[in-house]
Protein backbone atom coordinates (compact mmCIF):
# COMPACT_ATOMS: atom_id res chain seq x y z
CA UNK A 1 0.00 0.00 0.00
CA UNK A 2 1.18 3.53 -0.75
CA UNK A 3 2.13 5.35 2.44
CA UNK A 4 0.56 8.57 3.63
CA UNK A 5 4.11 9.89 4.03
CA UNK A 6 4.62 9.50 0.28
CA UNK A 7 1.25 11.03 -0.63
CA UNK A 8 1.61 14.09 1.57
CA UNK A 9 4.86 14.96 -0.22
CA UNK A 10 3.07 15.08 -3.59
CA UNK A 11 2.43 18.63 -4.72
CA UNK A 12 -1.01 17.81 -6.07
CA UNK A 13 -2.05 16.64 -2.61
CA UNK A 14 -0.49 19.46 -0.59
CA UNK A 15 -2.76 20.93 2.09
CA UNK A 16 -4.91 17.79 2.37
CA UNK A 17 -5.56 16.49 5.88
CA UNK A 18 -4.98 12.88 6.93
CA UNK A 19 -8.55 11.73 6.31
CA UNK A 20 -8.45 13.19 2.79
CA UNK A 21 -5.06 11.59 2.14
CA UNK A 22 -6.40 8.27 3.41
CA UNK A 23 -9.32 8.51 0.99
CA UNK A 24 -6.83 8.99 -1.85
CA UNK A 25 -4.58 6.24 -0.50
CA UNK A 26 -7.47 3.79 -0.77
CA UNK A 27 -7.72 4.48 -4.51
CA UNK A 28 -4.01 4.09 -5.34
CA UNK A 29 -2.60 1.27 -7.43
CA UNK A 30 1.04 0.58 -8.31
CA UNK A 31 2.22 -0.11 -11.85
CA UNK A 32 5.76 -0.79 -13.03
CA UNK A 33 7.31 -0.29 -16.45
CA UNK A 34 10.58 -1.07 -18.22
CA UNK A 35 12.71 1.42 -20.17
CA UNK A 36 10.96 2.61 -23.32
CA UNK A 37 7.64 1.02 -22.41
CA UNK A 38 4.63 3.19 -23.16
CA UNK A 39 2.60 4.18 -20.10
CA UNK A 40 -0.06 5.88 -22.16
CA UNK A 41 -0.46 7.30 -25.65
CA UNK A 42 -1.51 10.78 -26.76
CA UNK A 43 -5.07 10.91 -28.04
CA UNK A 44 -6.30 8.06 -25.86
CA UNK A 45 -9.04 8.42 -23.25
CA UNK A 46 -7.33 8.56 -19.86
CA UNK A 47 -8.21 6.03 -17.22
CA UNK A 48 -5.76 7.15 -14.55
CA UNK A 49 -4.09 10.09 -12.87
CA UNK A 50 -0.41 9.19 -12.36
CA UNK A 51 2.49 9.94 -10.01
CA UNK A 52 6.10 8.83 -10.42
CA UNK A 53 7.07 6.79 -7.38
CA UNK A 54 10.58 5.81 -8.51
CA UNK A 55 12.60 6.17 -11.72
CA UNK A 56 11.88 8.57 -14.56
CA UNK A 57 9.09 9.17 -17.05
CA UNK A 58 9.35 11.09 -20.32
CA UNK A 59 6.37 13.02 -21.64
CA UNK A 60 6.68 13.15 -25.40
CA UNK A 61 4.96 15.00 -28.16
CA UNK A 62 4.60 12.30 -30.77
CA UNK A 63 4.08 13.58 -34.28
CA UNK A 64 2.90 10.23 -35.62
CA UNK A 65 2.73 6.59 -34.71
CA UNK A 66 6.18 5.19 -34.05
CA UNK A 67 8.91 5.03 -31.45
CA UNK A 68 9.34 7.80 -28.87
CA UNK A 69 12.09 10.11 -30.13
CA UNK A 70 14.29 11.89 -27.56
CA UNK A 71 13.90 15.19 -29.43
CA UNK A 72 10.14 15.02 -28.91
CA UNK A 73 10.47 14.95 -25.14
CA UNK A 74 8.68 17.87 -23.53
CA UNK A 75 9.81 17.07 -20.01
CA UNK A 76 11.29 14.32 -17.87
CA UNK A 77 9.54 13.58 -14.59
CA UNK A 78 11.10 12.09 -11.50
CA UNK A 79 9.95 10.88 -8.09
CA UNK A 80 6.88 12.57 -6.67
CA UNK A 81 5.85 14.33 -9.90
CA UNK A 82 2.26 13.93 -11.12
CA UNK A 83 1.24 13.41 -14.75
CA UNK A 84 -1.85 12.54 -16.75
CA UNK A 85 -3.76 15.68 -15.72
CA UNK A 86 -6.04 15.19 -18.75
CA UNK A 87 -7.74 12.43 -16.77
CA UNK A 88 -9.35 15.09 -14.56
CA UNK A 89 -10.04 17.75 -17.18
CA UNK A 90 -12.64 17.77 -19.96
CA UNK A 91 -12.54 16.60 -22.75
CA UNK A 92 -10.59 13.79 -21.01
CA UNK A 93 -7.98 13.02 -23.67
CA UNK A 94 -4.22 12.60 -23.21
CA UNK A 95 -2.33 15.37 -25.04
CA UNK A 96 1.12 13.81 -24.71
CA UNK A 97 2.48 10.29 -24.51
CA UNK A 98 4.30 8.94 -21.47
CA UNK A 99 7.17 6.44 -21.53
CA UNK A 100 9.39 4.90 -18.92
CA UNK A 101 12.74 6.73 -19.24
CA UNK A 102 14.82 4.79 -16.72
CA UNK A 103 15.79 1.12 -16.54
CA UNK A 104 12.62 0.58 -14.55
CA UNK A 105 10.06 2.99 -13.22
CA UNK A 106 7.41 2.59 -10.58
CA UNK A 107 4.24 4.64 -10.76
CA UNK A 108 1.24 5.21 -8.56
CA UNK A 109 -1.96 5.41 -10.56
CA UNK A 110 -5.40 6.47 -9.39
CA UNK A 111 -8.47 5.53 -11.45
CA UNK A 112 -9.92 8.83 -12.61
CA UNK A 113 -13.51 7.76 -11.88
CA UNK A 114 -12.66 7.13 -8.23
CA UNK A 115 -10.77 10.41 -7.89
CA UNK A 116 -13.60 12.41 -9.48
CA UNK A 117 -16.03 10.68 -7.11
CA UNK A 118 -13.88 11.81 -4.16
CA UNK A 119 -14.06 15.38 -5.52
CA UNK A 120 -17.83 15.11 -5.73
CA UNK A 121 -18.12 13.80 -2.17
CA UNK A 122 -15.64 16.28 -0.67
CA UNK A 123 -15.58 19.56 -2.61
CA UNK A 124 -12.83 20.97 -0.44
CA UNK A 125 -10.56 18.05 -1.37
CA UNK A 126 -11.53 18.51 -5.01
CA UNK A 127 -10.86 22.24 -4.94
CA UNK A 128 -7.45 21.80 -3.33
CA UNK A 129 -6.37 19.05 -5.73
CA UNK A 130 -7.71 20.81 -8.83
CA UNK A 131 -5.94 24.06 -7.83
CA UNK A 132 -2.70 22.09 -7.85
CA UNK A 133 -3.60 20.23 -11.02
CA UNK A 134 -4.17 23.59 -12.70
CA UNK A 135 -0.56 24.44 -11.85
CA UNK A 136 0.60 21.21 -13.52
CA UNK A 137 -1.47 22.06 -16.63
CA UNK A 138 0.13 25.51 -16.74
CA UNK A 139 3.62 24.10 -16.36
CA UNK A 140 3.04 21.67 -19.22
CA UNK A 141 1.71 24.52 -21.35
CA UNK A 142 4.87 26.54 -20.70
CA UNK A 143 7.04 23.50 -21.50
CA UNK A 144 5.09 23.00 -24.72
CA UNK A 145 5.43 26.69 -25.53
CA UNK A 146 9.22 26.40 -25.15
CA UNK A 147 9.20 23.41 -27.47
CA UNK A 148 7.06 25.23 -30.04
CA UNK A 149 9.45 28.19 -29.91
CA UNK A 150 12.36 25.83 -30.44
CA UNK A 151 10.65 24.21 -33.40
CA UNK A 152 9.82 27.54 -34.93
CA UNK A 153 13.34 28.76 -34.44
CA UNK A 154 12.19 31.67 -32.33
CA UNK A 155 14.44 30.57 -29.49
CA UNK A 156 17.43 31.44 -31.61
CA UNK A 157 16.13 34.98 -32.02
CA UNK A 158 15.28 35.21 -28.31
CA UNK A 159 18.87 34.49 -27.36
CA UNK A 160 20.05 37.60 -29.18
Amino acid sequence: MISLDFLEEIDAFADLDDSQLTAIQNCCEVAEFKRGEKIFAAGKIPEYFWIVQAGQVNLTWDMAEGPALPENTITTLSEGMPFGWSSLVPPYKYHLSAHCASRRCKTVRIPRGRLLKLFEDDAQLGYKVMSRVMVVVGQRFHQLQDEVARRRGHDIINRW
Partner: protein
Amino acid sequence: MGGLAFLKKVDIFKGLNQKQLNAVNKMAREKQYLYGDRLFAEGENADRIWLVIDGKVDLRFDLPGRTTSEENTVFSIAECETLGWSSFVPPFKYALSAYSATKSCKVLQITKEHLLEYFEKDPRMGLMFMTNMAAIASRHFDQLQESATVSPVAKVKITVHMSTCGIAAGARQVMSALMEEISRSDRQDVEVASAPCIGQCKSEPNITVEIGGSEPVIYQKMTPDRMRQVFKKHIQGGKIQKDFVLSD
Protein backbone atom coordinates in the same frame (compact mmCIF):
# COMPACT_ATOMS: atom_id res chain seq x y z
CA MET B 1 -21.70 45.49 -17.25
CA GLY B 2 -22.04 42.05 -18.76
CA GLY B 3 -24.59 41.09 -16.13
CA LEU B 4 -25.79 37.70 -14.98
CA ALA B 5 -27.08 36.65 -18.37
CA PHE B 6 -23.58 37.15 -19.77
CA LEU B 7 -21.78 35.45 -16.87
CA LYS B 8 -24.02 32.40 -17.24
CA LYS B 9 -22.69 31.95 -20.79
CA VAL B 10 -18.98 32.36 -19.97
CA ASP B 11 -16.94 29.16 -20.22
CA ILE B 12 -15.12 29.62 -16.91
CA PHE B 13 -18.37 29.85 -14.91
CA LYS B 14 -20.09 26.84 -16.45
CA GLY B 15 -22.15 25.00 -13.83
CA LEU B 16 -22.34 27.85 -11.29
CA ASN B 17 -25.66 28.58 -9.57
CA GLN B 18 -27.42 31.95 -9.35
CA LYS B 19 -25.92 32.83 -5.95
CA GLN B 20 -22.41 32.08 -7.14
CA LEU B 21 -22.91 34.10 -10.33
CA ASN B 22 -24.20 37.02 -8.26
CA ALA B 23 -21.01 36.93 -6.21
CA VAL B 24 -18.91 36.94 -9.38
CA ASN B 25 -20.94 39.82 -10.79
CA LYS B 26 -20.01 41.96 -7.79
CA MET B 27 -16.29 41.29 -8.29
CA ALA B 28 -16.23 42.16 -12.00
CA ARG B 29 -14.97 45.42 -13.52
CA GLU B 30 -15.66 46.38 -17.11
CA LYS B 31 -13.06 47.82 -19.52
CA GLN B 32 -13.06 48.75 -23.17
CA TYR B 33 -10.23 48.61 -25.72
CA LEU B 34 -9.80 49.73 -29.31
CA TYR B 35 -8.33 47.73 -32.19
CA GLY B 36 -4.63 47.03 -31.58
CA ASP B 37 -4.68 48.03 -27.90
CA ARG B 38 -2.69 45.68 -25.73
CA LEU B 39 -4.56 44.22 -22.74
CA PHE B 40 -1.40 42.73 -21.28
CA ALA B 41 2.10 41.75 -22.38
CA GLU B 42 3.89 38.42 -22.13
CA GLY B 43 5.94 38.36 -18.93
CA GLU B 44 3.80 40.90 -17.05
CA ASN B 45 2.45 40.00 -13.62
CA ALA B 46 -0.78 38.02 -13.99
CA ASP B 47 -3.24 38.73 -11.20
CA ARG B 48 -6.64 38.61 -12.86
CA ILE B 49 -8.81 36.83 -15.40
CA TRP B 50 -10.43 38.54 -18.39
CA LEU B 51 -13.80 37.68 -19.88
CA VAL B 52 -14.63 38.88 -23.38
CA ILE B 53 -18.07 40.53 -23.52
CA ASP B 54 -17.88 41.98 -27.05
CA GLY B 55 -15.32 41.64 -29.83
CA LYS B 56 -12.27 39.42 -30.02
CA VAL B 57 -8.87 39.25 -28.31
CA ASP B 58 -5.78 37.75 -29.95
CA LEU B 59 -3.16 35.97 -27.87
CA ARG B 60 0.21 36.28 -29.58
CA PHE B 61 3.82 35.23 -29.36
CA ASP B 62 5.58 38.61 -29.58
CA LEU B 63 9.15 38.49 -30.84
CA PRO B 64 11.57 40.71 -28.91
CA GLY B 65 12.30 44.03 -30.58
CA ARG B 66 9.61 43.62 -33.23
CA THR B 67 6.20 45.12 -33.65
CA THR B 68 3.33 42.79 -32.96
CA SER B 69 1.79 41.02 -35.91
CA GLU B 70 -1.37 39.02 -36.52
CA GLU B 71 0.72 36.19 -37.92
CA ASN B 72 2.03 35.54 -34.41
CA THR B 73 -1.47 34.92 -33.11
CA VAL B 74 -1.62 31.54 -31.42
CA PHE B 75 -5.32 31.71 -30.59
CA SER B 76 -8.19 34.13 -30.56
CA ILE B 77 -10.54 34.54 -27.64
CA ALA B 78 -14.13 35.22 -28.65
CA GLU B 79 -17.19 36.43 -26.77
CA CYS B 80 -18.01 34.52 -23.58
CA GLU B 81 -14.49 33.10 -23.43
CA THR B 82 -11.83 33.66 -20.79
CA LEU B 83 -8.15 34.50 -20.79
CA GLY B 84 -5.57 34.93 -18.06
CA TRP B 85 -5.24 31.47 -16.53
CA SER B 86 -1.54 32.28 -15.95
CA SER B 87 -2.66 34.20 -12.86
CA PHE B 88 -3.23 30.82 -11.19
CA VAL B 89 0.04 29.22 -12.29
CA PRO B 90 3.53 30.06 -10.97
CA PRO B 91 5.44 32.22 -11.84
CA PHE B 92 2.13 34.17 -12.23
CA LYS B 93 3.26 35.89 -15.44
CA TYR B 94 1.29 36.06 -18.67
CA ALA B 95 2.59 33.44 -21.11
CA LEU B 96 1.45 35.38 -24.21
CA SER B 97 0.51 38.95 -25.10
CA ALA B 98 -3.15 39.90 -25.61
CA TYR B 99 -4.42 42.46 -28.16
CA SER B 100 -7.83 43.74 -29.06
CA ALA B 101 -8.48 42.28 -32.52
CA THR B 102 -11.74 44.06 -33.28
CA LYS B 103 -12.70 47.72 -33.73
CA SER B 104 -13.71 47.78 -30.11
CA CYS B 105 -13.51 45.12 -27.49
CA LYS B 106 -15.28 45.03 -24.16
CA VAL B 107 -14.02 42.84 -21.33
CA LEU B 108 -14.68 42.10 -17.67
CA GLN B 109 -11.74 41.83 -15.29
CA ILE B 110 -11.90 39.84 -12.05
CA THR B 111 -8.94 39.74 -9.70
CA LYS B 112 -7.60 36.42 -8.52
CA GLU B 113 -7.55 37.69 -4.95
CA HIS B 114 -11.32 38.21 -4.93
CA LEU B 115 -11.98 34.83 -6.46
CA LEU B 116 -9.74 32.91 -4.06
CA GLU B 117 -11.33 34.65 -1.11
CA TYR B 118 -14.74 33.45 -2.26
CA PHE B 119 -13.53 29.90 -3.02
CA GLU B 120 -12.38 29.52 0.59
CA LYS B 121 -16.00 29.98 1.62
CA ASP B 122 -17.42 27.95 -1.26
CA PRO B 123 -14.99 25.18 -2.29
CA ARG B 124 -17.56 23.61 -4.63
CA MET B 125 -17.48 26.79 -6.69
CA GLY B 126 -13.67 26.69 -6.49
CA LEU B 127 -13.67 23.10 -7.76
CA MET B 128 -15.90 23.98 -10.72
CA PHE B 129 -13.87 27.08 -11.52
CA MET B 130 -10.53 25.23 -11.40
CA THR B 131 -11.89 22.38 -13.52
CA ASN B 132 -13.29 24.84 -16.08
CA MET B 133 -10.06 26.80 -16.12
CA ALA B 134 -7.99 23.64 -16.60
CA ALA B 135 -10.32 22.75 -19.50
CA ILE B 136 -9.64 26.16 -21.08
CA ALA B 137 -5.88 25.70 -20.65
CA SER B 138 -6.29 22.21 -22.11
CA ARG B 139 -8.00 23.69 -25.18
CA HIS B 140 -5.16 26.21 -25.55
CA PHE B 141 -2.71 23.33 -25.22
CA ASP B 142 -4.43 21.61 -28.17
CA GLN B 143 -4.45 24.80 -30.22
CA LEU B 144 -0.77 25.41 -29.50
CA GLN B 145 0.08 21.89 -30.64
CA GLU B 146 -1.95 22.43 -33.81
CA SER B 147 -0.44 25.84 -34.52
CA ALA B 148 3.02 24.31 -34.34
CA THR B 149 2.32 21.42 -36.65
CA VAL B 150 -0.01 22.96 -39.19
CA SER B 151 0.54 26.22 -41.00
CA PRO B 152 -2.54 26.90 -43.08
CA VAL B 153 -0.81 29.42 -45.31
CA ALA B 154 2.61 27.78 -45.56
CA LYS B 155 3.63 26.96 -49.09
CA VAL B 156 7.31 26.75 -48.26
CA LYS B 157 8.90 24.66 -45.53
CA ILE B 158 12.53 25.17 -44.59
CA THR B 159 14.01 22.67 -42.16
CA VAL B 160 17.30 23.47 -40.46
CA HIS B 161 18.97 20.30 -39.21
CA MET B 162 20.06 21.28 -35.74
CA SER B 163 21.60 18.24 -34.11
CA THR B 164 24.77 18.64 -32.03
CA CYS B 165 26.99 18.23 -35.09
CA GLY B 166 24.93 20.73 -37.06
CA ILE B 167 25.02 23.28 -34.24
CA ALA B 168 28.79 22.83 -33.88
CA ALA B 169 29.13 23.48 -37.61
CA GLY B 170 27.08 26.70 -37.41
CA ALA B 171 23.41 25.69 -37.79
CA ARG B 172 22.29 28.32 -35.28
CA GLN B 173 23.86 31.12 -37.30
CA VAL B 174 22.18 29.70 -40.41
CA MET B 175 18.82 29.67 -38.59
CA SER B 176 19.33 33.26 -37.47
CA ALA B 177 20.14 34.40 -41.03
CA LEU B 178 17.04 32.58 -42.26
CA MET B 179 14.80 34.24 -39.67
CA GLU B 180 16.22 37.65 -40.63
CA GLU B 181 15.54 37.05 -44.32
CA ILE B 182 11.98 35.91 -43.65
CA SER B 183 11.38 38.95 -41.50
CA ARG B 184 12.80 41.30 -44.17
CA SER B 185 10.83 39.67 -46.96
CA ASP B 186 7.53 39.88 -45.06
CA ARG B 187 6.65 36.43 -46.42
CA GLN B 188 3.89 34.83 -44.37
CA ASP B 189 3.82 31.51 -46.17
CA VAL B 190 7.16 30.19 -44.95
CA GLU B 191 7.19 27.56 -42.24
CA VAL B 192 10.48 27.06 -40.40
CA ALA B 193 11.27 23.84 -38.59
CA SER B 194 14.25 22.36 -36.86
CA ALA B 195 15.00 18.67 -37.16
CA PRO B 196 17.71 16.17 -36.27
CA CYS B 197 20.81 15.37 -38.30
CA ILE B 198 20.31 13.68 -41.68
CA GLY B 199 23.29 11.40 -41.09
CA GLN B 200 25.69 13.42 -43.25
CA CYS B 201 27.87 15.00 -40.58
CA LYS B 202 30.58 16.05 -43.02
CA SER B 203 28.14 18.15 -44.98
CA GLU B 204 26.63 19.99 -41.96
CA PRO B 205 24.97 22.39 -41.55
CA ASN B 206 22.23 21.04 -43.80
CA ILE B 207 18.88 22.54 -44.63
CA THR B 208 15.95 21.05 -46.52
CA VAL B 209 13.75 23.25 -48.69
CA GLU B 210 10.28 22.09 -49.71
CA ILE B 211 8.20 24.31 -51.97
CA GLY B 212 4.60 23.27 -52.62
CA GLY B 213 4.50 19.66 -53.71
CA SER B 214 7.93 19.69 -55.37
CA GLU B 215 10.79 17.36 -54.45
CA PRO B 216 12.69 18.43 -51.28
CA VAL B 217 16.09 19.99 -51.93
CA ILE B 218 18.84 19.38 -49.36
CA TYR B 219 21.58 22.00 -49.18
CA GLN B 220 24.94 21.31 -47.57
CA LYS B 221 27.68 23.21 -45.74
CA MET B 222 25.40 26.15 -45.19
CA THR B 223 26.66 29.47 -43.87
CA PRO B 224 24.65 32.64 -43.15
CA ASP B 225 25.69 34.02 -46.57
CA ARG B 226 24.69 30.83 -48.37
CA MET B 227 21.40 30.84 -46.45
CA ARG B 228 20.68 34.39 -47.59
CA GLN B 229 21.51 33.45 -51.20
CA VAL B 230 19.27 30.36 -51.07
CA PHE B 231 16.44 32.42 -49.60
CA LYS B 232 16.71 35.17 -52.22
CA LYS B 233 17.34 32.99 -55.27
CA HIS B 234 15.55 29.72 -54.50
CA ILE B 235 12.71 30.65 -52.14
CA GLN B 236 12.04 34.06 -53.66
CA GLY B 237 13.29 33.46 -57.20
CA GLY B 238 12.49 29.79 -57.70
CA LYS B 239 16.02 28.92 -58.84
CA ILE B 240 17.69 25.99 -57.06
CA GLN B 241 21.27 26.86 -56.03
CA LYS B 242 22.90 23.77 -57.52
CA ASP B 243 26.37 24.57 -56.22
CA PHE B 244 25.18 24.05 -52.64
CA VAL B 245 22.93 21.04 -53.21
CA LEU B 246 23.97 17.87 -51.38
CA SER B 247 25.03 15.27 -53.89
CA ASP B 248 24.07 11.60 -53.35
